[in-house]
């Protein structure tokens, strides 16, 4: 499933977080959504997920807005930085709540816990979790419905090098299955290894959208293109 953003604009009072942004994140590819802090990456994802109402424009998933999806969790899996956990709830129960909400069988919970490596910690309460464990739990939640599109905001946050490598493999595998994967990230080196397609935002505006190789073939190509595109005056 693809993410199709068209002329998306979002103003929070006097602040324009996203200004007239259009791009497509195709299915079957990993799309890196890049940009400095405050560039509008998170707002774009939130608009696509129906958490934030656009001032203008649309962000459609498989051609429909989020609230139009028949079974949202089976179409889209999201990992956002501000998704919280009740500290007193066990990891397994956190996922069981989501499974019940999505009409998924409970065995999916055990499956994704194993997939992200939290099977042993599943019965512990989240308040005792490290950042990396919370990230894994959030990833598990995103994967629960076997969604056709994944929208991930800084998914490698808190993961150790083995975790980062594992995540890279997972994302490539999911894209290989024909799913759409969008990763918003600051980690240019990691995105260069993982993504096929790149979208660069800065100051709420689109600076580049296209295949990664268009930015150059050399190892530092992404970083130099990124810095050039995002430090130019708006």
């Amino acid at each position, binding site marked *: 499933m693809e993410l199709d953003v068209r002329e998306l604009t979002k103003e*929070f009072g006097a602040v324009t977080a996203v200004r007239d942004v259009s791009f497509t994140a195709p299915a079957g590819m990993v799309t890196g959504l890049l940009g400095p802090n405050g560039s509008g990456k998170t707002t774009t994802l*939130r608009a696509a*997920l*129906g*958490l*934030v*109402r656009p001032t203008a424009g649309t962000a459609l998933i498989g051609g429909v807005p*989020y*609230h139009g*999806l028949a079974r*949202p*969790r089976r179409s*889209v899996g*999201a990992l*956002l930085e*501000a*998704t*919280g*956990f*009740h*500290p*007193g*709830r*066990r990891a397994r*129960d*956190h996922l*069981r*709540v*989501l499974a*019940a*909400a*999505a009409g998924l069988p409970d065995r999916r919970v055990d499956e994704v816990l194993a997939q992200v490596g939290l099977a042993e910690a599943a019965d512990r309460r989240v308040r005792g979790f490290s950042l990396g464990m919370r990230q894994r739990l959030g990833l598990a*939640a995103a994967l629960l419905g076997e969604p056709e599109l994944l929208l991930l905001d800084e998914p490698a946050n808190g993961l150790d090098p083995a975790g980062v490598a594992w995540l890279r493999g997972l994302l490539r595998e999911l894209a290989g299955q024909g799913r759409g994967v969008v990763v918003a990230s600051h980690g240019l080196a990691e995105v260069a290894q993982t993504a096929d397609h790149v979208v660069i935002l800065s100051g709420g505006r689109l600076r580049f959208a296209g295949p990664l190789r268009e930015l150059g073939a050399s190892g530092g190509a992404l970083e130099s293109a990124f810095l050039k595109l995002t430090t130019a005056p708006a």
Partner: protein
Amino acid sequence: MLRSELRKLTSVRAPWLLLAAGPLIVVAGVTSLVESGGNVRDPSVQTQALAHAGLAAIITLLFGIMAVAGEYRHATITDTYLSYPARGRVIAAKLAVYGAVGAGAGLASSGAALAATAAWWAAKGATLHLSAADLWLTLAGGAAANLAFALIGVGLGALIRNLVAAVAAGLAWIALIEGIAGQLLGSSLARLLPLHASEALDRTSILGAERLLPQWGGAVVLLGYAAAFASAAALTTLRRDVT
């Protein structure tokens, strides 16, 4: 949807610890009524004792507030809206589940009121007038008040969204503001205020109000408040951006 809301409640301890305080408050209330010289042979005192079941409604109010405001506090509201983008349905489900649990808590508090009253009456050598319709109506009213305030709490928490602010608003209203509002409105309109309505439902008169609604009227008014808060929230605050 109801299943996931129920799982949210059964997977944490805090709401149950809160609800457990209800029957304890009821027992304390009955005890203090007797200890302060209540005449156990007076049937109206029996009603007053049993009416303490409605006192636990403060607890179910706080419990209801946690339904939505608690989710905003722990940022789990994001997941909830991702699961159910139709936010009006979310509040409907919470009203159903928190209402059901609140009703259960109400029954527990009514049971506690009956047990405490029976125990004290026996200790003082009096008997309860068990066949009196008044007894059962009073207990039913107390349980219903618990349910009603749980529903009101859900709506209030959804409208205010900030847990601490919603709790403060609820407690301030109960402790202070309704009393003042009642004075300002005069006894005829004051009957429609929530605490006055709950007194009607509980068949008691702790506030010393001159006129109260009939018992069923109290129930209708309280349910009206619950519906008003919940609808207002569904139309306004719940639709706001989640950042």
